[in-house]
């Protein structure tokens, strides 16, 4: 049973991000510090006000603390996998609730583009770390893992390549309205069909970007957040579930089992269910993940996500506008962090041309061997 007393007890008090794209003059530490300063300005705080520090993807928490001159009371670091953004935010609430800190800064820095990160090939560790065992068969990369899942979904349920293309195209249309997005040029479904295959059935445009950037968030009690500079956004509920056993191979249930558990806890804690969500932020590492996510989190029955998203449901103005920033596919691959920040901006009404009118509840979801979801609400307790 989720702890319902956590609902709306904690809030996002500050958000910040760097520019996105190719930023070769900055390393991951620089990007993290840049984002942190933006988030502190947003909250009206100084570095010395932070007493909890959660680092993600940046290589070393010790070095980071040295750079910003901070000795936080609580400090931790998490692996540089996108599934950890939701995890870190949930951990921040747990740390606050346990009284281990009062103001937690979450800092993410990623210089993957300039650092020459590659997914797939000899350095690939995706799939439970045992990836090298399968290189002799040419099997490698998170993209191929998701291509295998997509092919199975297509075969079992009749999901089409065009439906995945519609996800990609919709998010690109959103990115066109977002001045911060890296890829803003809209394309047609026909152009999607002609984009080259990377690992079939996935085209280049089904893959997220690789770029540089940093994101930070400040999380504290709802009570404290109300006294800070910006409008607080409540963490109304969250959930986590994992599917680690057997995770070398693509899950034959598309992670629906773990997703449904995380969904149930999220909806129970928040008291908010899918029909009440005004917008969705879906971890779009690859387009099929968006479809699996909608099924796992109860937006549509298993196997029906393809038809469900047709007719513009995920587009701004549709019934369930998703990834209004352009997401990982078109805004920036900030491994979930920028999607959480976009949720906060939507609920504060700061999204200009891409604003979801009257947004009150936004759900963040990531579907992976570690599933997380967070519901944000504009009304703080």
């Amino acid at each position: 049973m989720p702890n319902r007393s956590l609902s709306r007890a904690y809030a996002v008090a500050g958000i910040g991000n760097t520019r996105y794209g190719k930023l070769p003059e900055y390393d991951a530490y620089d990007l993290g510090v840049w984002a942190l300063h933006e988030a502190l300005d947003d909250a009206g705080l100084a570095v010395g006000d932070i007493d909890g520090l959660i680092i993600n993807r940046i290589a070393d928490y010790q070095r980071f603390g040295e750079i910003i001159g901070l000795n936080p009371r609580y400090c931790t670091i998490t692996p540089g996998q996108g599934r950890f953004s939701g995890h870190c935010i949930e951990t921040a609430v747990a740390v606050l609730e346990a009284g281990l800190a009062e103001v937690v800064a979450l800092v993410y820095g990623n210089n993957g583009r300039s650092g020459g990160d590659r997914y797939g090939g000899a350095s690939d560790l995706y799939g439970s770390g045992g990836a090298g065992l399968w290189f002799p068969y040419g099997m490698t990369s998170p993209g191929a893992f998701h291509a295998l899942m997509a092919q199975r979904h297509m075969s079992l349920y009749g999901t089409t390549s065009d439906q995945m293309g519609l996800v990609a195209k919709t998010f690109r249309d959103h990115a066109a309205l977002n001045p911060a997005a890296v890829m803003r040029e809209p394309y047609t479904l026909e152009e999607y069909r002609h984009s080259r295959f990377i690992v079939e059935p996935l085209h280049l445009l089904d893959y997220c970007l690789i770029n540089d950037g940093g994101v930070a968030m400040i999380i504290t009690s709802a009570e404290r957040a109300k006294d800070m500079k910006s409008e607080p956004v409540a963490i109304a509920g969250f959930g986590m579930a994992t599917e680690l056993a057997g995770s070398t191979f693509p899950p034959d249930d598309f992670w629906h089992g773990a997703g449904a558990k995380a969904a149930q806890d999220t909806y129970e804690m928040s008291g908010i269910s899918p029909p009440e969500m005004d917008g969705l932020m879906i971890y779009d590492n690859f387009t099929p993940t968006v479809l699996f996510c909608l099924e796992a989190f109860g937006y549509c029955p298993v196997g029906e996500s393809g038809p469900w998203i047709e007719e513009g449901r995920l587009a701004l103005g549709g019934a369930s506008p998703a990834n209004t920033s352009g997401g990982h596919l078109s805004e920036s691959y900030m491994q979930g962090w920028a999607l959480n920040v976009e949720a906060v901006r939507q609920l504060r009404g700061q999204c200009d041309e891409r604003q979801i009118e009257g947004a009150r509840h936004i759900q963040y979801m990531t579907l992976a061997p570690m599933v997380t979801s967070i519901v944000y609400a504009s009304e703080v307790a």
Partner: protein
Amino acid sequence: MSVYAKPLPRLDDANAPFWAAAKAHELKLQKCADCSTLRFPATRHCASCGSTKSGWEAVSGRGTVESWCRFHQVYFEGFGTEVPYTVIVVRLNEGPRLFSNLVGASAGGHESEIEIGLPVDVYFDDVTPEVTLVKFKPAT
């Protein structure tokens, strides 16, 4: 004689019995000596019961295709002349899964036959004098 340019398995201690069996054209998986659960890749501990006692047992080599994909991107130089090539996930009749290749697929012979649930039989591909890869072909 042409040089084999694709990645070769890392012959570590844990998985050595798997590759030794393959060289002898046998498919063997690790089997828990306490609860009899089969597993692969090799681990010290059984994920079902936690036992550290295990051996290697020959399995049927029969299974079904759980999914497949086709690589157009070249991630390994040795595959450069072979793209697009197919990778399959095989669910062995005994339960465990393997990533592998469907023999004949890249030559076009069986490509159209790939479908989920396609029954397959193990095929041992002696790629070098030392190494045999565990591949699959459509069951006859």
